[in-house]
Every structure is written in C-alpha cells, then in structure tokens.
C-alpha cells in the first residue's frame, strides 16, 4: 500500500513538471517570435532604407554613383511578392516600398537631380545604384 502511494505521487510530480516546462517554452517561443517579427518588419526596413538613401544623397556631389547593398530589403520584398523597384525618388523625396500596402518616404535637402536603379550588372540584383546627375 505504502509503495503504491509513493509511485502515484512520483507520477503526479512528473506531469506537473512537464506542464510547467511546456508552458515556459511556449512563453519564450512567443517572446522570441515577437522580437524576430518586430526586428525584421517591413516597416522597419522601409524606414531604414529611405533614411539611409536620403542621407547618402544629402552628402553626395554631382557626378557620383553610389551602390548600396539591398539584399535584406530585396529578400523582404520577394517574400511580400513585390516585384517593382523598392526605391524611388520623386523631387527631393525618397520612397522605400517593400510591399503593395506599405511604404516610407523621407526628404533630402541637397538640391540635386538624383535617381535610383537596381544594379543589374552582376546578374542577380543585390545592390541599388544611386546616381547623382547634377544640381537642379
């Protein structure tokens, strides 16, 4: 009788521990998923790209061609099934767009005629070329 009781008790503790470990794992999984989703979000990459390009244009001089590695942004656009140019420049406003529904714009103050193209020279598009044509 005594030994049966001990066996039953042991099993009970094990089940509690498993539930405890599973719940803890679920907690941490949700946490990690939340962090990774936030850190690689479309909006975040769009903002980073638009501001980066605007600052590059601000510090550039006429005649310069600047290549920027856009692999992360292009991968994200591919996942979002977005096939158009991810960087566009209209007037003095840079727009980065990685999906049909989103987009982020930021202005630059350098009064130059600038344009952004995907760099197709290497076959696979990894870079974008920012071309500074001249002062407006």
């Amino acid at each position, binding site marked *: 009788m005594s030994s049966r009781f001990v066996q039953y008790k042991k099993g009970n503790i094990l089940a509690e521990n498993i539930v405890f470990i599973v719940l803890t794992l679920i*907690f941490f999984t949700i*946490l990690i998923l939340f*962090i990774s989703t936030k850190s690689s979000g479309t909006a975040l990459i769009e903002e980073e790209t638009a*501001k980066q390009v605007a600052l590059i244009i601000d*510090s550039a001089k006429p005649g310069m061609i600047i290549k920027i590695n856009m692999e992360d942004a292009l991968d994200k656009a591919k996942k979002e099934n977005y096939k158009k140019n991810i960087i566009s420049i209209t007037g003095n406003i840079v727009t980065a767009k990685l999906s049909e529904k989103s987009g982020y*714009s930021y202005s630059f*103050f350098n009064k130059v005629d600038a344009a952004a193209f995907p760099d197709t020279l290497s076959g696979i598009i990894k870079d974008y070329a920012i071309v500074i044509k001249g002062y*407006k």
Partner: protein
Amino acid sequence: MKLIKNKKGSDKVLSIYWFVILFIVSTGIFGMVYVYYHAPFNVRGAEGDIMANKIVECISQQGKTSSAWISGANTNTQASNTCQNARDCQKIIGTKIASIISGIKNTLPADVDSSVKQEDVAENLNCLVLQIAMQESSLQHCKQPQVNGNPLYCDGNRTDVKALDNARETSLGVLQVNTNVHSVAAEYFDLSVAYAVKNVLITNYNQYNAGNLFASTNTVYSGWKAAIRGYNGWGSGGDNQYVEHVIGQKDYVNQLFPELCSPGATTIVGQKKDIASECHLNFNSEFKEQQQYYVQVDFYDLKTFQVTTTANGEKITSQPVATVFDGNENLKADCELQKDKNFKIQSKCVEKRFYSVDEKNNPYIINVLSVIRKTEKNAVQ
C-alpha cells in the same frame, strides 16, 4: 508524512509565483521591444551635420571666404555708424542694443521673447529694452545726440556720458544704470547695456515674477511688469507710473524699429539671405505646413573673438560682425533650450566653427548653425 504534505503545498505555491514572475518579466520584455522597434530612427543629428558641412564648403573654398557674404549681410557692429538727426541716432543706438541682446541671449531664459509678447508689454525682449532705453534716455548714451555724426562719441568717457546725478542716484548711459547701487562701469555702452539687461531687468523678472506690491501706488505687479517696476526701483522717489510709461513707448519703438518690433518680426539681428539657393539646398520637404530647416552663419572678427567655457561647453561671448540666416526662424528657439538638456521632440541643432580669410586676408571665425526639425519622422510617431 506531515513534512511531505507541507513540501507539496510549497511546490504548487512556487509554480504559481514562477508564472506570475514569468508573466511580469515577459510583459516587460514585450513592452521594451515594442517601444524600441516602434520608435523611429533618429537621423537628424547626421542630417544637421551634413547640412552644416555643405554650408561650410559653400562659404569657404580652399580657406577663402568671399567678402560678399560679410559685406552683403547686415554688419551688426559696422552698420552705418553716423547720424545727423536725433531719430537716425536713436536708430543706430537701438540697433546696437538689439545686437548686444542677441549676443547675450544664450545666457537668458529660453522663452524670454514669447513671455514678453504674451504679457503684451512689448513685441519681444529687444523691443522691451528699447522701450526702457527710450523712457530712460530717449535712446541717447551721450549728453549730445551726436558729435561729428557719432552718437557714441562719449563711449567710456564719464564726463560726456548722459547722467542723472542727485542725492538718490547717479545713473549713467542709455539705460541709466544707477552706479550708486550697481558696481559697473556704465559709461561703457556695451557693458552698461549687457549689465542692465542681465543683472537688473532679468534679475528683477526672476525675483518678482510671481508678483510684488509696489507700496507707493498700492499696485501688485507680476511677470514682466514686475521686472519693469523693479528696473526703476520698488522704493519711493522714482517714477510711480514707470511701468505704464515704458509700455506707452511701444508704438514709438515699433515705428522706429519695424524690422525688430513689428508683429511677427524676427528677433535675430542679421540679414535673411537665400543661403539655400547659393549653397544648392532645397528646404522643401514632405511636411508642407512649415519649413523643417533653419541655417544661420555668424562671422566673427578673429582679433576680437572670445569664448568662455561653461559646464555645458563653450559659449561665444563676442559679437558677430555679420550674420546671415535662412529657413524657418522659429526653430532657433529650440537650440537655446537644448543648451541645458537634450529634448527629443525638439529640433536638432548642430554647430560648426571654422577659420577663414577673405580676399584681403582679413581673418574670421565663422560659426555655422544648422537646425533640423522633422520631429514626426525622427522622434515621435
């Protein structure tokens, strides 16, 4: 057996506490991650830095600065220094007072202009001081309005400086600083103006801002009215209607100095110049309602250039010989605030200082200030 029972109970309690702790910790982490990734990238510092560099390159090419930048601007201390009639002399004296106030503005409270305007005593601090100078001396530092066209012929010469000498006071100069009370060489124009503003007017404002009774008329004055009252003194024997008399000078001063005192006038002494076009800059942005940029370039004579070191860094104490600016002038007030503390939601200010010479090899220290607002895209969403 009793011991085992107790142990089981403590295990269950522990696991509940564990989940409570886990919940609190994960809520904290969720919150931190959300705040961190939700906040926009603040690139205004880099943007301001690039803009200041662009202006430096534009003004000085290979160490040489075109004198057109300096002579084309309103030269603050070398502007037409001669006059023949009283009104023109008042204009010269008034412009110099405004220039001195601009030079010490960074030592005064940041919201000084807006609070003066709010209380409707004057359009801004410059104009309030001009109104006081008008009341005290009719904007005249010397006994005569001018000698050989020079309204400051007496500067530093005690016997020729306008004075009020009696048993109560020995007041000197354009702002009639009472040298019986204040230990200052008030016969020197620059010194007496800076002292009167900082040590008399502003001190009275700080001391009696909340309100103080003027016993002679049984009137309680507060804010800038208290500062004006304090300027003339709280005791008996002065002008009992001094505050009303100073405010009464508003119309005359506004007429005499429309560039400084007309409604909406800038308090920056200098010239608005199209720096944007000359330096290939475009001040338009995605914010259509107001310009997001401001630039100011101050030219200092190297021979008289002075700085003082304070806890918040270096402060220029000398007067610029010329100032040019462009963009949204309202943003400059944010820079004054940021000298003590960096406020995230305010415009970002970047300053650069460099040495240059003009075509005649006259040496200058040139201070470039660039201000970027774009708050909605860099600080708050």
